């Protein structure tokens, strides 16, 4: 039988220890430091730039670090019309992003093809890559992009990150801990 000892109250660590679930801590870290991949393909990119600039300041939500290398990105913001000529390039860049990764389809064109019902335009980026958040608008206001980002943060905070990323380890832990 394991020995149990009453732990003495240590006033030095008061306020320095937080109990939480591992997922909650991990998700909290992830959602507050989303590095965007600015996939600016049309006029939505102008609003994306405005969102990043001082007036709307996407840095307030921890997503100011626009990276132009997919290797360093967490969330791809598809801002604009995706033509068939560009489609596979967007997919390739998405595939180059490390896990975990998310996608925001910004504006009507990226979500559905928008007003471009034509031979040249992909009718929504979700035909090629999984999309987490859709933002309506043509183009959406910066506030809408920020709302979309907050929606994504909310989604991330409910993710079962540990289980999704290390399924074998999670199963073994469950076995061991009963």
């Amino acid at each position, binding site marked *: 039988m394991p020995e149990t000892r009453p732990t003495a109250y240590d006033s030095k660590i008061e306020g320095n220890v937080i109990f939480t679930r591992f997922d909650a801590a991990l998700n909290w870290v992830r959602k507050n430091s989303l590095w965007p991949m600015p996939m600016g393909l049309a006029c939505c990119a102008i609003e994306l730039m405005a969102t990043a600039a001082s007036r709307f300041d996407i840095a307030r939500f921890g997503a100011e670090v626009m990276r132009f290398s997919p290797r360093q990105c967490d969330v791809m913001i598809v801002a604009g019309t995706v033509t068939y*000529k560009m489609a596979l390039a967007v997919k390739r860049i998405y595939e180059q992003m490390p896990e975990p990764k998310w996608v925001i389809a910004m504006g009507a064109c990226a979500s559905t093809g928008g007003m471009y019902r034509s031979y040249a335009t992909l*009718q929504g980026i979700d035909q090629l890559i999984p999309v987490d958040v859709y933002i309506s608008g043509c183009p959406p206001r910066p506030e809408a992009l920020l709302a979309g980002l907050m929606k994504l943060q909310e989604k991330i905070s409910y993710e079962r990150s540990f289980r999704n990323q290390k399924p074998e380890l999670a199963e073994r832990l469950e076995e061991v801990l009963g």
Partner: protein
Amino acid sequence: MSREELLNRFTKAFEAKLQLKIEFRGETTYTIAASDLRLVAKFCRDELSFDYLIDITSIDNFGEEPRFEIVYHLYSMSDGIHLRFKLKVPEETGAVDTVSDIWPTANWHEREAYDMMGIKFNGHPDLRRILMWEGYPYFPLRKDFPLEGLPSEMPDIAFTKVTPMEGGPFVTVPSTATSKDREPRARPPEL
């Protein structure tokens, strides 16, 4: 050189070769034969100071013969005068001579006409598609190409699918009505 002087010199030089002259809002359009294109183009640039080729556009008169029409828009930088000439291209040959050595800017304009309409340009130094990818099987601005497109597949390069039109195309109406009435929506033609 004044406008009249310029046009006079033009008509004098090609009197027998001009098929049709149209005056519209102070702009002159001549129709010429496809075989005279390079002759006319060289004369316009060297003798008439048309140093700027604004654009080359192409028209598909589907169902008519000859099917295609090419329009050259010229501008004289020194005299500030516009000139336009057109020529017809039958579908069987589907080709005209290039003017890319006369006006270098024609290089890309001719590539666009080739890409969208499928008209070939004899003697063009680099006649590749410019907007669509190499290997795309259709010419999308031809009248017999459907608006919603046709499926195609080029592995690792690009693909296209048929666009759901949902009763469209969505069009507006030329009108002085409110923007609510002019809103683009499906307007099937009344039969």
